[in-house]
């Protein structure tokens, strides 16, 4: 670091760096603001949540979360007076508003459905996608390019365009409102992404590794499991995240095809009605909880995700 003022193509000038940091921070703020707002709303009382101007400083309340997990019934003051003292804090909170807890809500169930369907379809997409991508990458397949294009073409129309045919089809084969039906549907949508992404990753793994394993005495399947899969782990992780994000957040099909047993959280959350309209704190609480698994999953695989996106950019 002498007095040299030579222009470096690698090190950015200070102001360029400051500007780029500023832009990144600005973008991060814009992205994170709605999440912060949802998170805060989850801890507001219903009155605070709709006050104008919006309250930034408020007294936190767990009412939203209590409302999310319970169903309540309004009672007359006379009846309330006959009740024994509340045996927990949630009951006390509800009684302040002249209501009693009537039972648990369906949110837990719906959340579990989301987990089963989201992770189930992600697993299936990645599993099938890896096998298909390996075959496309390594073997001579007649009409390979056409098949790859066909697989991609399933993503070319908005999925909702086929919603009515799928709805009718599912009704006639009895897949409506079932976990299996939703897993299959999301897998079908995700598999094109999985095959294309994973083919790219597997193409990058030199053929020689498998050939070495074949010569050393492994079968093709063993070579695939012991040699190819560990090296494709990064790509598989990245693909899994993309698949999970789609099936976790999917709303339109879930709204149309599920109503009870297999309903996922996205169509359920907006249906949480409180007294006098939508119970915003409860909705926000549901949304906050709904975010947690996918954020955790992404953080867990973050290292792979970053490598996955830039994979192949530099020849190793």
């Amino acid at each position, binding site marked *: 670091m002498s007095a040299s003022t030579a222009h470096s193509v690698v090190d950015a000038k200070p102001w360029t760096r400051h500007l780029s940091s500023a832009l990144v921070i600005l973008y991060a703020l814009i992205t994170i603001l709605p999440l912060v707002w949802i998170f805060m709303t989850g801890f507001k009382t219903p009155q605070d949540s709709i006050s104008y101007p919006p309250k930034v400083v408020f007294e936190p309340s767990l009412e939203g979360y209590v409302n999310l997990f319970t169903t309540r019934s309004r009672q007359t003051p006379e009846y309330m007076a006959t009740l024994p003292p509340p045996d927990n804090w949630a009951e006390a909170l509800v009684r302040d508003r002249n209501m009693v807890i009537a039972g648990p809500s369906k949110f837990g169930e719906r959340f579990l459905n989301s987990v089963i369907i989201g992770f189930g379809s992600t697993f299936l997409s990645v599993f099938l996608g890896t096998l298909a991508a390996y075959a496309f990458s390594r073997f001579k397949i007649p009409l390979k390019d056409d098949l790859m294009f066909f697989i991609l073409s399933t993503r070319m129309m908005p999925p909702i365009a086929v919603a009515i045919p799928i709805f009718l089809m599912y009704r006639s084969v009895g897949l409506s409102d079932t976990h299996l039906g939703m897993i299959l549907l999301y897998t079908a949508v995700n598999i094109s992404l999985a095959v294309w992404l994973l083919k790219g990753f597997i193409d990058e793994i030199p053929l*020689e590794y498998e050939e070495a394993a074949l*010569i050393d*005495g492994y079968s093709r399947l*063993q070579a695939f499991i012991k*040699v190819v899969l560990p090296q494709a782990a990064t790509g598989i992780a990245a693909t899994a995240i993309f698949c999970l994000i789609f099936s976790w957040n999917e709303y339109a099909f879930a709204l149309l095809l599920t109503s009870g047993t297999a309903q996922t959280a996205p169509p359920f959350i907006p249906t949480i009605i409180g007294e006098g309209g939508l119970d915003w704190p409860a909705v926000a609480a549901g949304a906050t909880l709904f975010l947690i698994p996918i954020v955790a999953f992404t953080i867990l695989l973050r290292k792979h995700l970053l490598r996955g996106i830039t994979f192949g950019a530099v020849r190793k």
Partner: protein
Amino acid sequence: MAEIRVENLRKTFGDFVAVADSSFTIDDGDFFVMLGPSGCGKTTTLRMIAGLELPSSGAIYLGGEDVTFNRASQRDIAFVFQLFALYPHMNVRQNIGFPLKCIGRPRSEIRERVEETARLLRIDHLLNKSVSGLAGGDRQRVALGRAIVRRPMAFLMDEPLGTLDAEFRDLMCEELRLLHDRIDATTVYVTHDQLEAMSMADKIAVMNKGYVEQFGAPQEIYDRPATMFVAEFIGSPPMNFLRFHGAVAKGAAAVRMDATEVILPVLREDRPEGELALGVRPEHIRFDDASGLRGEVFEAEYLGTNQIVTVETGQGMVKARLRADTRVSAGETVGLSFLSERLSLFDVSSGRAIQTALYDGGRHG
């Protein structure tokens, strides 16, 4: 250890003929090199011997057994790849031990043999290192270790030194040859580098466009090239060709080139009138003022122990390897004379050498 026999081996990819009817036998314990420019079919031949490619026709025998259509894993061979193909998710010990693990050897035996192999290659201090941090030469040694740990019938190597820098390459050439002498395994080695081939091989097959042009010991290939391709591919600078028109008859010991008579080994066959080429190695040329073959010095390239002088003659440019202390200056007219008993004569239309006394007793591809 075993003899490898290749019979009428042929491989086509669609209309493209990668290997055209190759036949040769690699003796037990030989270090055999397939040499040729890229696309000549040498790697394809190697991969067929390994079982990574199936031949379109022909047969491969390994130790007398027909293995033509056997799976790679059923051939008892080891393969060293150009890019080493070390598994990045395993350390050095696991990489070397992998072939033994594949065939299900007990853990204690794997441990013992891996350590023995590592000592042989002098990489025992690296056993617990990750392969991604190794230098090129050490990676190469690990790849070799993985090949020899199982003590297979034959080693197949596909340009294993291709990615190393020049300094390492010389060192590894020497090590490979020493290793071969110590374990005495039949080795098939593919390269496009003639120096590697000449310095290591017991036998060389020079390949071009899918054909084996010549098969023989390095010295034989250098001294008695069977075709113009071989003559030009081997040697640096390559053999000079002085083209002329004429006919030769069996028993003659000289050819007439313009006004000059050139003495060469006694011809063993007739050749009707046509384009001929006299093949002269640069080191077999001397400056001789008495010679009728004259030319003008074009340039001189000083190499320390000797120099390469390019002379423009009526038959084209000729490169001569002369003593470094010979004084030459560009533009000077000189006479050239050749070491008669080391000259070759080629038929330009077929590219093949015309048989002379020089070739007596030699084998030809």
